[in-house]
């Protein structure tokens, strides 16, 4: 009897200790994640507040972490004095054009691979090669050819490169979406007298549109973020945001904080949007993200 009571007491104590540890573990998990959030998002917080500071706040000590009188004057300066409006538009236009072109060109190819196994394993080899290929190996010959043809500092010439760089990636993702698409629906359309191409455009596309949007957003952000081709092949008119931001690095480590931080804020906006919209596809998208330099 006495032993039995003692045993249940031990059990209860053990269970209690277990529960306490579980709670401690739970708290520690959230503490750890909070620390991670501070580390990974802190820089963004600082950049945003810095871009809203007046000059006195930059120089103040103790430092001002949250500006007392936020102002948009650095954004105004960036857009007027540094022609930021033009370069922001350039980035938008380039990314949009190559996004559309990449999807339009990749869709029939993906269809060909998904339906007819075109090219055997060619695509995966291309993907692998392109994934490994440093962008620097491509930019040297392309620069020489573009120089000879006189098409550096040209929007379309850049769009062509960006489109092609993301074709293998776009095709690969689209093949996945197309394989999930039931063949019967297309066949039904074709029995009704639809051509293959019309069936693709009018029947398949509306249904796999969400998948195409994923591909489109990834190629948009990839072009938006690209730097090496942009810095080599753009001139004063065609510069992108990525090239503009590097112009603030002259002047040592303490440079134009206002405009520089404003341009970083604008430069990272699409990344924020896409991180939330494409959650389910982030692993694939980042793993295959093309020639990132």
């Amino acid at each position: 009897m006495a032993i039995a009571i003692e045993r249940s007491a031990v059990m209860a104590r053990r269970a209690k200790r277990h529960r306490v540890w579980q709670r401690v573990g739970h708290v520690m998990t959230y503490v750890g994640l909070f620390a991670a959030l501070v580390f990974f998002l802190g820089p963004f917080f600082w950049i945003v507040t810095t871009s809203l500071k007046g000059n006195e706040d930059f120089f103040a000590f103790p430092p001002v972490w949250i500006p007392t009188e936020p102002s948009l004057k650095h954004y105004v300066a960036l857009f007027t004095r540094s022609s930021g409006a033009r370069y922001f538009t350039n980035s938008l236009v380039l990314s949009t054009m190559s996004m559309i072109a990449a999807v339009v060109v990749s869709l029939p190819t993906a269809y060909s691979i998904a339906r007819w196994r075109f090219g055997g394993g060619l695509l995966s080899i291309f993907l692998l090669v392109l994934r490994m290929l440093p962008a620097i190996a491509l930019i040297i010959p392309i620069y020489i050819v573009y120089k000879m043809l006189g098409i550096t500092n040209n929007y379309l010439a850049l769009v062509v490169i960006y489109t092609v760089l993301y074709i293998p990636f776009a095709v690969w993702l689209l093949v996945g979406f197309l394989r999930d698409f039931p063949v019967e629906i297309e066949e039904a359309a074709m029995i009704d007298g639809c051509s293959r191409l019309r069936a693709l455009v009018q029947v398949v596309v509306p249904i796999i549109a969400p998948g195409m949007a994923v591909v489109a957003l990834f190629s948009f952000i990839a072009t938006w973020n690209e730097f090496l081709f942009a810095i080599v092949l753009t001139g004063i008119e065609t510069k992108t945001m990525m090239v503009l931001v590097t112009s603030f690095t002259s002047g040592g480590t303490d440079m134009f904080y206002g405009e520089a931080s404003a341009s970083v804020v604008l430069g990272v906006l699409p990344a924020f949007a896409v991180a939330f919209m494409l959650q389910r596809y982030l692993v694939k998208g980042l793993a295959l993200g093309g020639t990132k330099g």
Partner: protein
Amino acid sequence: MRIPALGLKRKQWEPLAFASPSMALIAFVIVFPLAYSFYLSFQNFDLSVGPEYEFVGAKNYTEALFRDQRFMGSVWNTALLIAPSLLLELLLGLGIALLLSRVLRGRPIITALLVIPSMVSPVMAAMAWRMMYGVKYGAINNLGRQLGIIDVYFDWFSSPLVSIIAVVLVEVWHNTPFMMLVLLAGLQSIPTELYEAAKADGASAWQRFWSITLPLLKFTMAVGVMIRLIDLTKLFGLIFVLTFGGPGGATETVAFTTYLMGFKDFRMSYAAALSYVIVGGVLLLTLVFMWIQRVRETRVAA
């Protein structure tokens, strides 16, 4: 029901016609330039001298591999940057992924927030950090002074060692989220029954981690490390903005040296040869890595 008479049978030309636009583009923009660059790497094309060039055999390659101190130095620098970055990204990524896998509520939103740095361009990441490293107005020095950790304005890019640490920190900030994401996917694919069975058998949390999580996560870890390794050999934008190769070339990576060779000195043939040396090196690295994986797997199997 299939009705062949209505033309649903596969037409021979259709697959090719559908695929040809992108194939043509890839041929023009990727395959042809690479071939042209390979041809150029055996010439002595130098835009700073003039448009004429002639065949010089493998001279560019022998110079790159045996005589070019600067390029050799950049190989060493790249390795010095890669090793700590990879290790930290793997450990930190694993740690955060483990924490995330324990969270039940709000996981998607926390993951999305944590992953943002990886979506940002290297140039933007570097710019944000360059400002944070700023001597007088940077967040790091100011925070350090406010908390009383440092009492001078520290220049983070004054010595080679500190610069390398500074670059590694930015790199870790930028790409750990990717590693975390990959490992989280790996963790979620481990069946929970395994843990329950181990728990029933009285295995401690540590034992469960050591003998279930780690072995089953090995492949995912290898894939993640592999991808990061390949990407780290391309390290360019980060260096361009953060240090421009300095101080004294201590952070000049292979991609950055090649860039300078091509677009500052305009030695196009030599830069082309360097880029092929890099491609060869990455290929070799990949093969060695795969071979090590293979050896380890067969040893485990045996």
